[in-house]
């Protein structure tokens, strides 16, 4: 199990990277943290002719406060983000999501942008950007553009990134003041890919839910926002029965979850409902 031969470049800037991608077209594959790509290379499930290693593009490694949001360079490794005071203060939900990614050794190399651009349906960060309505900044041969999270994930392992483009930054809006949050996932062992997961945020006004947001991962080809459940919760009185009802509704509403060697569609459906309810309960408990 060794990679097939490939040409290799290690550009030092975004401009250089874009030029290389243009030059090599669909033969080129970007190498970020490598925690997903190199296993594929080793097993020859991916055989790009050209590997463009962007680990030397220092300009993509940063964590900045930007108004109410956090702007994180795509090549920031997950461990740096996890250990950043700014992340912990500004977005505890982002911190919690990163903590669930694999193991520290994975997070030492894996990047924020890489996980999102790779778009594994069972990954935490894609669902997180969807629930937060984050923005993806992209650089390409035609300049820069921004894509909202809801438009970014197309299908299994496929994003709105066109050939020749790379993700440069992700802007994570902060949670509304006083919002509670929760991320729940079910894995066989700690650090495994999630069989399914739910992320919820909730703001309360007294006993009334002002706003709720829910996104699921591991149940479809892309992260799934739940507008029906969110609408059901908005303006409703916070009650255990309501949260249970929403959980049940979520179970039945999911379109074609996957059956694979890890879990059946039926199990994932059930799991999604249970995790949604738990996420809502925990988010409500955290809400001020």
């Amino acid at each position, binding site marked *: 199990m060794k*990679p*097939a031969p490939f040409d290799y470049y290690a550009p030092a800037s975004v401009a250089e990277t874009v030029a290389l991608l243009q030059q090599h077209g669909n033969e080129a594959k970007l190498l970020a943290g490598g*925690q997903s790509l190199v296993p594929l290379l080793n097993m020859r499930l991916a055989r790009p002719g050209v590997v463009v*290693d962007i*680990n030397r593009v220092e300009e993509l490694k940063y964590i900045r406060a930007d108004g109410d949001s956090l702007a994180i360079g795509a090549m920031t490794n997950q461990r740096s983000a996890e250990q950043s005071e700014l992340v912990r203060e500004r977005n505890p939900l982002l911190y919690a999501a990163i903590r669930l990614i694999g*193991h520290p050794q994975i997070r030492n190399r894996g990047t924020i942008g890489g996980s999102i651009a790779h778009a594994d349906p069972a990954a935490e960060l894609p669902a997180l950007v969807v629930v937060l309505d984050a923005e993806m900044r992209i650089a390409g041969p035609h300049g820069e553009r921004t894509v909202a999270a809801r438009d970014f994930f197309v299908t299994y392992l496929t994003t709105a990134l066109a050939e020749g483009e790379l993700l440069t930054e992700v802007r994570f809006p902060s949670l509304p003041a006083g919002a509670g949050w929760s991320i729940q996932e079910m894995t066989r062992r700690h650090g495994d890919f999630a069989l399914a997961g739910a992320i919820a945020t909730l703001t309360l006004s007294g006993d009334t839910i002002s706003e709720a947001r829910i996104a699921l991962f591991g149940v479809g080809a892309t992260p799934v926002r739940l507008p029906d459940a969110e609408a059901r919760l908005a303006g409703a009185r916070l009650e255990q029965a309501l949260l249970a009802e929403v959980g049940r509704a979520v179970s039945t509403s999911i379109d074609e979850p996957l059956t694979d060697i890890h879990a059946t569609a039926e199990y994932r459906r059930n799991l999604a409902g249970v995790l949604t309810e738990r996420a809502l309960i925990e988010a409500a408990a955290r809400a001020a």
Partner: protein
Amino acid sequence: MPSRDVRLSVNGVSYEASVEPRMTLVDMLRHELGLTGTHVGCEHGVCGACTVLMDGRAVRTCIMLAVQADGAELMTVEGLAKDGELHPIQQAFMEERGLQCGFCTPGFMMSIHELLKATPDPTEEEVKDALGGAICRCTGYEAILKSVRSAAKKMRP
């Protein structure tokens, strides 16, 4: 693609190698540099046997390309002992029977080194979190956890 030069330091010693871009870092360490203490278990980043420290961080060398280590400072298991004296982590593993076949051991010890450097008095949770990504088929892990506790004690002033 023709070979690329890689210059790096491992355990304080400078090395230079000429490798194909597709060569993994673990293969370069083992076959080009003769540092065979780091092992290959799964070749897809799930077992931890290939773990070394790169610029102080535990990384899985089977899923890194050798060329990515150009300019880096690595520490492998061969760098734990100093002047023939075993590192407290090594000492602890021997005393607490943290190894049987020894194949996974170097990988575990490097992760433990990173953990104890950052967190000299880790909780059980923190230890399990740091080591959860490494697999041992022999010990059942209890002896490894005991080894970590013992190493932490030895390393605390």
